[in-house]
């Protein structure tokens, strides 16, 4: 693994490795000294061309907990507003010898361009590009689901996948990179995914995705579900009217108080409600649902730091630049002692 650009090309082995590493990283957050020296002397640049709260803070916290130096860059207030191109910005960073670039960009494919164009030598982590992918969000969602899934099954979560879990992803799939990344990662991990959205908010070609599609949230809930992921209605990307009114959207596709009560009525006591944030309370999720014990919104934020620590550690430690195509050595090799 050289870069983390999307979840479609992430193998099951690598996905499990990231989740397992994140699990060990999460223990660091509970210690007295919340810091590990693993990336001491490495530089991580957060390159944000689009607004973000939790992803940027989360990456910053993750890099700092691993003792890396962090440079934050946002397009506002930088030379980008004077018209500097992505290439020139990236090469400026390269000249400052960044080891990893965390990039969020409004254009789908910008991170892949950065990784594959040869402009820079650093590892590239996609922190959300346009409507394409947001791999660390999908990984932290999967981490949250795996912790829950192994708890109700009473098994150890290390090394486990999500086989048999039923996941609903509800809302604005059309504009959601979170949904896209989740569909592919959850497929890799063996979960069963159903997308629920108004027909206008489903992308062209969704029938080829490895998931089912439904237009009716109540019917989908009644078939039984272990996790419901609500997506934000991305008003800033909506340049046409995709649904008649917000009230109608909330009533048909929002997770409101009635549907919260319905989970109890359906005897789905272990179903969790997820949201990648930021939430539009009252639109796609009601306050009662967002604050209920079923909600994992804050756990997702907490797990985000662990997952991003794992991604940074796995991309930056190990291979020094000379041996790029190196895959991680499986931890079962009995050679622990020899290089020490």
């Amino acid at each position, binding site marked *: 693994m050289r870069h983390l650009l999307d979840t479609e090309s992430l193998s099951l082995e690598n996905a499990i490795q990231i989740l397992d590493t994140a699990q060990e*990283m999460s223990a660091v957050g509970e*210690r*007295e000294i919340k810091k590990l020296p693993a990336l001491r002397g490495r530089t991580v640049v957060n390159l944000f061309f689009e607004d973000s709260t939790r992803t940027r803070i989360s990456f910053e916290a993750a890099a700092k907990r691993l003792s890396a130096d962090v440079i934050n860059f946002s397009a506002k207030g930088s030379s980008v507003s004077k018209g500097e191109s992505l290439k020139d910005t990236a090469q400026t960073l390269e000249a400052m010898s960044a080891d990893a670039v965390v990039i969020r960009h409004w254009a789908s494919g910008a991170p892949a361009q950065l990784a594959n164009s040869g402009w820079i030598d650093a590892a590239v982590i996609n922190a959300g590009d346009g409507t394409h992918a947001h791999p660390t969000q999908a990984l932290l969602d999967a981490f949250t689901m795996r912790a829950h899934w192994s708890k109700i099954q009473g098994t150890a979560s290390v090394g486990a996948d999500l086989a048999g879990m039923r996941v609903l992803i509800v809302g604005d799939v059309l504009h959601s990179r979170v949904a896209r990344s989740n569909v592919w990662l959850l497929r890799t991990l063996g979960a069963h995914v159903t997308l629920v959205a108004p027909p206008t908010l489903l992308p062209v070609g969704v029938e080829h995705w490895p998931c089912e599609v439904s237009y009716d949230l109540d019917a989908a809930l009644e078939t039984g579900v272990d996790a419901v992921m609500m997506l934000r209605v991305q008003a800033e990307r909506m340049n046409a009217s995709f649904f008649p009114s917000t009230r109608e959207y909330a009533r048909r596709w929002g997770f409101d108080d009635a549907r919260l009560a319905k989970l109890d009525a359906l005897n789905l006591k272990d179903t969790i409600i997820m949201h990648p944030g930021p939430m539009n309370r009252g639109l796609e999720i009601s306050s009662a649902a967002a604050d209920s014990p079923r909600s994992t919104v804050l756990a997702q934020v907490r797990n985000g730091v662990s997952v991003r620590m794992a991604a940074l*550690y796995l991309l930056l*430690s*190990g291979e020094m630049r000379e041996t790029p195509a190196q895959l*991680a050595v499986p931890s079962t090799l009995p050679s622990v002692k020899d290089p020490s």
Partner: protein
Amino acid sequence: MTTSSAASQGSQQNSAPVTVSRVVLSAADIERALTRIAYEILEANKGLSDLLLLGIPRRGFPLAQRLAVKLAATDPTVDPATIVGQLDVTMFRDDLAQQPTRAPQRTQLPVSGIDGKTIVLVDDVLYSGRTIRAALDALVDLGRPRAVRLAVLVDRGHRELPIRADHVGKNLPTSSSEKVRVHLVEIDGGIAANDEVVIEAGA
């Protein structure tokens, strides 16, 4: 050099490397060494008070568990599970950038914490000393023990740091081209039916 390796010397040069291995400690030898180390620890610590064993993954941890059972056998009021823990040092190694990525293992401390305790670090093979240096760094981030000691099953020499073991199962003079492999049933159940320590000649 053993006779077998001397005999195969000629064929080694022109064919694929034949690993010549010889058993230096059998299961019974390991058992006896651990029993002696347990008594040494008891003697040095004058009993079991404020004593914790921390095994370094992966093979240090089962060794620490076995030592804990032996120590607890001398004092019926002590539960072996409460004096043993696991200390992962992966993130503290000085060769992270040069080696292939290592997956971190779990750090589990006894509920009592490590502040003010006497810690005995337990590992299988002491070689360069770099793992132990990393372990000392890892300990500092977890608390402030009163004293830290080191127990190893095998000391093979070739130290690169000013570190020595307090309790050694066996001193094993080796060449740095050789490999010392410790097989424990808890971890290598599939490879070795019994505990053993093996020296493999370098290719």
